[in-house]
């Protein structure tokens, strides 16, 4: 099979998968009440950020505990463009990708010199420091109060087309095209020459360098791509209502990493599964604690306990995550 043809098939597959994801979310939202519809929009938003970790950690082996901070960069970038300069929401989302990618470029230049724990620690410090910049330069970033932004009202042509839609549904419709596009981009990136280069760097830097790969440049490029994705997610996340330091806490960064690990760091399907898990699991636990009449002082900590335990169990028993386990079962059935 010629190389050209291989690429064509991959392109078709990723297009179909992205459309399938889009339709799946739409169909699912029809079954849900407004609260769960907004949770679904959250999933679609956070999925973009989790995909950025799948790229960064899964494909190139760099770890970031500060994706939430990069989301804040995207969120503030787009919110400032809309509130101060009067840009349209859609353009500000696109520009948020470039703003955070630029930020990722600077970060990547520093990060390419770092490995493993150094990178983890530095990004963790960043996750704490960046929200505090918003408080420090209060006149520009509005401090703790934050900037109020929202998705606005659905346009008339859409309501004419599909009838009356709720605010929750509209937020899903705004986010979904970006999610599908992000999925398309990540699928294509990881299955092409670029993605193979990244994996080579991840698996063995020395042998990758000997094959003529520029390690530093590759790492920076990965960082830029992942930051662009995270920034887009941050912009969409902020437009739910508010862009403020409290919207992008350190825990957000860790939650995103947890989603990626639980699902399987190297799998895109795993990223989708993990994002569903971290958004819906707390709701599920809340329901259970209410039914069992567990006091609130304990119930408040149960989601964190469950997610932390899941993370530990995944790392110990099955480091490849849910996707890895699935593959393992499938493999066994064949034999």
């Amino acid at each position, binding site marked *: 099979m010629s190389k050209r043809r291989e690429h064509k098939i991959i392109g078709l597959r990723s297009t179909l998968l992205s459309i399938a994801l889009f339709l799946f979310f739409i169909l699912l939202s029809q079954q849900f009440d407004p609260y769960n519809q907004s949770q679904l929009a959250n999933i679609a938003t956070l999925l973009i950020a989790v995909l950025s970790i799948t790229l960064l950690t899964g494909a190139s082996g760099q*770890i970031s505990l500060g994706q939430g901070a990069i989301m804040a960069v995207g969120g503030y970038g787009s919110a400032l463009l809309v509130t101060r300069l009067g840009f349209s929401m859609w353009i500000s989302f696109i520009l948020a990708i470039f703003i955070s990618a630029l930020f990722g470029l600077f970060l990547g230049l*520093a990060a390419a010199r770092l*490995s493993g724990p150094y990178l983890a*620690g530095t990004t963790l*410090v960043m996750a704490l*420091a960046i929200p505090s910049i918003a408080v420090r330069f209060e006149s520009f970033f509005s401090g703790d109060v934050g900037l109020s932004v929202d998705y606005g009202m659905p346009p008339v042509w859409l309501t004419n087309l599909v009838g009356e839609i709720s605010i929750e549904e509209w937020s899903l419709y705004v986010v979904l095209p970006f999610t599908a596009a992000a999925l398309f981009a990540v699928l294509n990136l990881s299955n092409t020459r670029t993605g193979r280069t990244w994996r080579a760097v*991840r698996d063995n830097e020395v042998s990758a360098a000997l094959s003529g790969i520029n390690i530093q440049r590759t790492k920076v490029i990965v960082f830029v791509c992942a930051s662009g994705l995270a920034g887009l997610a941050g912009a969409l996340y902020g437009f739910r209502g508010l862009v403020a330091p409290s919207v992008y806490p350190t825990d957000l960064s860790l939650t995103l990493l947890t989603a990626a690990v639980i699902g399987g760091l190297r799998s895109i399907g795993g990223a989708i599964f993990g994002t569903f898990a971290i958004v819906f699991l707390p709701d599920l636990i809340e329901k259970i604690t209410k039914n069992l009449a567990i006091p609130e002082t304990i119930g408040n*900590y149960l989601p964190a306990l469950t997610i932390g335990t899941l*993370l530990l169990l995944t*790392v110990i028993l099955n480091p490849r995550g849910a996707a890895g386990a699935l593959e393992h079962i499938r493999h066994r059935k064949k034999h």
Partner: protein
Amino acid sequence: MTSFLTAFFSGTAQGAIYALVSLGLVLVWRGAGIVNFAQMGQAMFTTYIASQLIQHSYSYWSAFVIALISGAALGALVDLGLMRPLTSRKNSQLLNSQSMRTTIPVIASLGILGVLKALAGIFWAGEERGFPSPVAPNAIKIGSTNLAITGFDLFVIGVVFLTLVLTTIFFTKTGMGLAMRASALNPEVTRLSGIKVGSVRTLGWAISGTASSLAGLLVTPRTNLSPNTLDLLLIVGFTAAVVGGLTSLAGSVLGGFILGYVISFVNVYSAPENVFIAILIFLLLALFIRPQGILGSKEVRRV
């Protein structure tokens, strides 16, 4: 002048605590090649144990000792129960790749941190509580003039100084300390000379747990105690370890004191909300100018 002295003394006392945290991080890093992000979670947990004991009218010092012992036990438990099985499993496909061997323990330590925080929340409720100190936190007076240093500052500096002296004696004069240094330098050769590298590594985790537990006991009288209080201490301790050199014990202590002064002077001469940004800038500067740290040795990669 007064504000300078205030900044200097509070910087020394804070720096002493940061030095303990950073020492704990470096001990584990040298022994196991892991940065333990759960370290201050462990310290938070043992400080809660001490606080609980004091509430049940045990004396401060018995609670103090029990907290240190449980810190050591928790450290050893993390190594034996999690990190050792995790890093010794060579056949796993994921751990075969170079970068993942360092990434997976980091994720595991974050998992421990999350679980410990949640457990502390469940056991001891989430609200902040105070933690007593054996010395009154009033400024020391000579005659009628207030000195810029408090009795509690002196207590902290004294305890940490004692700890550092004991640690130095342990590492330079005892056989076990020598074994620890050897196995950090070259595990293979150390194993060949008949030293149980695994047990030595676990001892490193235990000492690290004790040091960070002590840091927790010393910092909470000022910051109060909640499941999240000690997060900041981890960040500062990590920065201190990087500034001083992740591979050097002396460097980690030096880094701790440097960070203590940086933070204290930013607090006094600038504004408290600038502290995070100062830490980030300081860390990035250190990484650009001298990535191996002030006293660290340059990593040699063998092919």
